[in-house]
């Protein structure tokens, strides 16, 4: 086992597993968010459950945050090693001749997503923590829909979210199927995995973008 922890392949496994875990989280996230467009009442109910259920708050949330941290930290560690592996750069290097742009620029799409997560955590997670633990305000199961829609009132925030979702799509386009290759899956199912990856990486970010734009265009009028 000690070899597994230190080796380059182990780091690849960690990237793949944490990436797949975050993909599963995205499915849950986009499903609940879509409720904010279809049924504000259900969205409030689901958000309240997620916000106050002890298993979600004290088990699943820390695991999720750990998954995000591990994925990003390992991404940086690998990137630094990869840069070291080519100490002197080519004068002419035609990367586009043999590999797609998305696969060669995962670090940049990842950095944009990291920056977005900073904003996203500030918008929602910090707000929730302040509401519950700093100001210690009473539970209000009806506040979530209004708070969410109001967040998308400024154009700049909606635009930043949409741009981030485009980068998320690019990141998933390569990363999702790539994690299966890393886990050793390259067989008759790989074509199906690649097709599913492409559908997933378009549909999920598109759904997120649609939700943001929908709330921007349909503000709550008091």
């Amino acid at each position, binding site marked *: 086992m000690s070899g597994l922890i230190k*080796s*380059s392949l182990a780091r690849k*496994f960690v990237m793949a597993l944490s990436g797949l875990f975050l993909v599963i989280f995205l499915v849950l996230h986009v499903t609940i968010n879509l409720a904010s467009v279809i049924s504000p009442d259900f969205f409030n109910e689901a958000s309240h459950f997620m916000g106050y259920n002890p298993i979600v708050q004290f088990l699943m949330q820390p695991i999720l945050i750990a998954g995000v941290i591990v994925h990003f930290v390992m991404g940086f560690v690998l990137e630094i090693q990869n840069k070291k592996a*080519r100490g002197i750069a080519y004068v002419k290097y*035609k990367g586009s*001749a043999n590999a797609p742009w998305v696969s060669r620029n995962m670090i940049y799409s990842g950095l944009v997503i990291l920056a977005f997560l900073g904003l996203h955590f500030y918008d929602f997670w910090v707000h929730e923590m302040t509401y519950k633990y700093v100001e210690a305000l009473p539970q209000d199961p009806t506040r979530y829909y209004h708070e969410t829609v109001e967040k998308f009132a400024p154009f700049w925030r909606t635009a930043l979210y949409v741009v981030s979702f485009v980068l998320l799509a690019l990141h998933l386009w390569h990363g999702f199927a790539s994690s299966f*290759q890393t886990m050793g899956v390259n067989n008759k199912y790989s074509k199906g995995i690649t097709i599913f990856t492409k559908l997933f990486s378009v549909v999920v970010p598109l759904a997120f973008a649609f939700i943001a734009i929908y709330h921007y265009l349909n503000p709550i009028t008091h």
Partner: protein
Amino acid sequence: MKLYLKIWRQKDANSKGAMVDYTLNGVESDMSFLEMLDVLNEELISKGEEPVEFDHDCREGICGTCSLMINGRPHGPDSMITVCQLHMRSFNDGDEIVIEPWRATAFPVIKDLITDRSAFDRIQQAGGYISVNTSGRPVDANAIPIEKDKADESFNAATCIGCGACVAACKNASAMLFTSAKVSQFALLPQGRVEAAERVQNMVRQMDLEGFGNCTNTGACEVECPKGISLENIARMNREYLSATLKG
């Protein structure tokens, strides 16, 4: 044809290199790329200048010795060939051609376009073989039945000539296509299964020690490999490694 060459010149491993411009006339389209460099070197020698050092041996695409980054691609613009199989008909009169050595920390430049690829030898020595412990009753390898698809996959992996184009092409200078081909060619055969777990662990450990980068599955290595070694080998190596390490 007339060519404008930009070639990496470096006196020795400890010197700092630089790109040097050469104009070469009278290049014929039927010449191989290496013959074109021979012509350049004859010109340089006749002028009393130091010829350009480059690796070459069989000149028929099987030894894996020639190793040039040509206009940003290992072995040049054509696919499934080595530099010695590349011909000047792939270029046009007046073209500028940038020629560099493989770039990887694990492949240090020895002189001009020659790199030290002994890191590959050390990976191979770490486990890329089958121990033959002879006894009084050796079993004839031909007497062991092997499924045709397994034998074909193993043979395909074994066609790797260890040229290093995978490392040169990879944006991370990763050696995983090479290492996985060497792991696979044995892992697929019954004779190789005996030492499979130990082999994959030792070869990956050596690969890491040599300072190669990590695979990010861009697929550049597969595209640039002159022997068409498949990414399936990397997936197989990952499976083998995971299974070997978890079993302890």
